[in-house]
């Protein structure tokens, strides 16, 4: 199956965007995104904590719908999914 991953803002700088992947059946959102993020240590650390969980402020969307990051480890991706990973910014 084919799943597209889009990173935004700083995540995009570190990891690129519009990444096409071919995950195996049963791959979870967490496994998919962390697999891609592994290619850049800084990118990985920006998104995941030391336990391999999504940092709590990260916004994760699947086909335009918010997925709670705490549910991402239990949510399997499906063919044709588009996953978006977005870091809210804080400065002013």
């Amino acid at each position, binding site marked *: 199956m084919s799943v597209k991953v889009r990173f*935004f*803002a*700083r995540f*995009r*700088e570190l990891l690129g965007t519009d990444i096409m992947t071919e995950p195996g059946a049963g791959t979870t959102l967490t496994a998919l995104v962390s697999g891609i993020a592994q290619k850049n240590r800084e990118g990985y650390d920006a998104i995941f904590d030391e336990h391999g969980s999504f940092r*709590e*402020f990260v*916004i994760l*969307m699947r*086909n*335009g*719908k*918010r997925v709670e990051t705490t549910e991402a480890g239990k949510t399997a991706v499906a063919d044709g999914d588009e996953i*978006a990973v*977005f*870091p*809210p*910014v*804080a*400065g*002013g």
Partner: protein
Amino acid sequence: MLSERERERYKRQILLFGEEGQERLKQSHIFIAGAGGLGSPIAIYLAVAGVGTITIVDMDVVDQSNLNRQILHSDRDIGKKKTVSALEKLREYNSDITVNAVDTTITAENIRELVGRADGIVDAMDNYPVRYLLNSVAVEKKIPFFHGAIHGFYGQATTILPGKTPCLECIFPKAPPKEVFPVVGATPGVIGTVQATEVIKYLTGQGSLLEGRLLIWDGLSSTSEEIAVCRNPACPACGAGPAGNHECQSTFFCPLP
């Protein structure tokens, strides 16, 4: 009533929303939280547009490292209170309006009184704890909250209408960490002018606001995108209120049309 001078001064925007719109701006009071990177363009554009009363709050002193982005302040202001410098500049820009510049830290204790009877709150803060305070007071007073935030070349903005749109805590239940954020001044320029435009549209009843939409600006690739955002019925800040978007209640973020 607009004076002859005001009619002339605002001639080019009266073409957009009429004397009636201009009169509405004149009768309005906007509260701007922060006189920094975002607060500068927001305050300047609202002042020159003729928003009748502007309250701007900041507790800081102008530092040399602020000057790459905080265009209310310049070299001669280093060491001055930002409120002093902001008041001077805004008076120079438009002496027909009233500016209240308040030198204080916004806290849970003073925020209600600071906002007073303002018609809207503009977010020009650099941290989420104070943003959440502003958000909850906007929800409580049922006045709009114009959110903006930036980092480097990136920015985001949305307009919160209590009871109708998701509030800030629906959209961002967890704050990103506070940091010394990199920034080039043009980025708060982009986002701050988006916020100022939203305020002017809201006050004059023009166009479509960023209601239930989070605008994401990527200045590095010069692209903007938007994410549809929905109310969280369990939101601690606004969840108990009557729902505005019933169809969106199954999720915080709803599919793009």
